[in-house]
């Protein structure tokens, strides 16, 4: 069973927010949408959960779809427990089941101690964990999380990803959007967006393997298709001809996305 979007385009007035985007979502799999600010990640998440109107294309989602918006979706004037209880009531969960599920999620997210703290009194990481807990509480088939790790410290990001992995292992289809390219490797599939258009998509290793041309490491900048990476410069050669003094390196997803962005920029 597959959900997701097929050849979807979304426009806000004359501005193209998404152009011909296709993304499949499968139970037990995590799809990560990566891209910079304004790349269309949030629009894609909102489109999948039904908050945006598509101009063309198709959207398919299960009836049990839950969404965590970019802002965490936590009600700041309710306590941690009240937030979870409200969501449980909203999804008509049986009270006894809801209580045990809430206790389980509080324990898993390490929020038991903060159960009586108001949403606005939680740290950024705690708020995001609560947001994801609220989204998974009703055991949805599809979980859409819009930038859940943005602004979090590395430890909180790790904790959140472990929680997201657990949700996928429980059989849920999960879509996570992120501005961090390294997070794409945590998913089964990746979709890279730029200005609403797909730069690359597929399994991470496939996307990396499909990079055209060859990649070299140099001590100096070599033309427009080069960028700094650590102490060296990466140089992409479309025809595979090595630059002077260049040493061929294995690209990773970050390189592939940079290549895709630079080459599409050059083409336009």
């Amino acid at each position: 069973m597959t959900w997701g979007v097929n050849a979807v385009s979304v426009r806000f007035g004359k501005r193209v927010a998404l152009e011909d985007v296709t993304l499949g979502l499968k139970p037990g799999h995590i799809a990560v949408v990566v891209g910079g600010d304004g790349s269309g990640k949030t629009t894609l998440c909102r489109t999948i959960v039904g908050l945006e109107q598509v101009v063309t294309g198709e959207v398919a989602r299960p009836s049990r779809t839950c969404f965590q918006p970019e802002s965490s979706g936590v009600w700041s004037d309710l306590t941690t427990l009240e937030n979870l209880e409200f969501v449980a009531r909203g999804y008509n969960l049986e009270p006894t089941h809801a209580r045990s599920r809430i206790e389980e999620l509080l324990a898993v997210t390490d929020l038991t101690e903060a159960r009586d703290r108001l949403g606005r009194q939680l740290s950024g990481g705690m708020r995001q964990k609560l947001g994801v807990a609220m989204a998974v509480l009703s055991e949805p088939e599809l979980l859409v999380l819009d930038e859940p790790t943005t602004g979090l410290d590395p430890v909180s990001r790790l904790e959140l990803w472990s929680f997201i992995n657990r949700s996928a292992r429980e059989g849920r289809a999960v879509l996570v959007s992120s501005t961090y390219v390294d997070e794409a490797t945590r998913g089964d599939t990746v979709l890279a967006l730029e200005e609403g258009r797909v730069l690359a998509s597929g399994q991470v290793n496939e996307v990396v393997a499909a990079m055209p041309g060859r990649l070299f490491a140099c001590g100096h900048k070599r033309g427009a298709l080069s960028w700094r990476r650590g102490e060296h410069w990466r140089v992409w050669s479309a025809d595979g001809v090595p630059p002077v003094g260049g040493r061929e390196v294995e690209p990773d997803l970050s390189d592939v996305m940079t290549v895709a962005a630079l080459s599409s920029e050059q083409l336009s």
Partner: protein
Amino acid sequence: MLAMILKEFRQVRRDRRTLAMLIVMPVVLLLVFGYAARFDVDDIPTVVVGPQSQVVAERLPDIFTVDSVARDGDRDDAEHELITGRAHVAIVVDGQEVTALIDGSELFMAQAAVRVFTAATDQVPGLSYEVLFNPDLDTSTVLIPGLAGLIIVFVGTLVTSMSVVREQEAGTLEQLAVMPFKPKDVFIGKISPYFLIASIDIVLVLLIGTLLFDVPFNGSALPLVLGAVMFLFVALGAGVLISSVSENQAQAIQLALMTALPQIMLSGIIFPLSSMAPGVRWIGYLLPLTYFNQVAKGVMVRGAGLGDLLIPLGLLTLLGLVIFGLAVIRFARQLRPARARVAA
């Protein structure tokens, strides 16, 4: 410092809505309120009853606009005309005796009528006058029923609009949109606390008005409750409508105040509607507070019953249906903008 000044000018220039409100609104408000802000009374709706009423009606000064003359009418008929609010002066002709009944719930009209009749009683034998409902022409008696409505405007419209916009800003409205709530569930849930708070406010204001300021409560509670409920729907609906066109809480506050101001000035609470220039008077007749004020004052001060207030109650219901209906539609659109295929 120059950099700071330039930055502020740039920001103000880009906030078009605020800029428009800062420049256009004062001009509009001055024009509208300038024509509305008149305490002078030159038109008092009047009825004359009893034998020879036609002769008396013809001799009345121009300030009294005689709307009906009933030769077979008596004092009860005259008082009923005042209770319903159709007339504010009723003249009862009974043989050689002519009694002018003045509606004390319309303060400025009553004061003007008293001035005319005080001067005339010395010259016209048999002429006397009585001020009904508010014999001392007490200001708080006239103002407090309308103030209850004004408080509903502030609590209902302002607080509701801010609450919905806060939910939009926090992103939790999206959360609600995705949850299996029907738009009406979210809508009713959202406004319920404010409905209750505003209801408590009305009761408190009216209680304080009657206990502390000696405002009478001469009528039955039913028409006032009906009017208050209808008016609450209008105020809360207006709050939701404002939230649907506001990007942030500051804009919601600005817009809510912009809807409250004309209601203060043009609803007849302060300035008599009949004293306003016809060019702005029609605005008053479009405002829900105008009709709530008529109902509240009618019930509390004049002792009007349900049957006497059918017109303002009907118009309030109509406004309630239109504004609340529009708010429900806008809110539902906000919550359900897209209809994606739902796979089984």
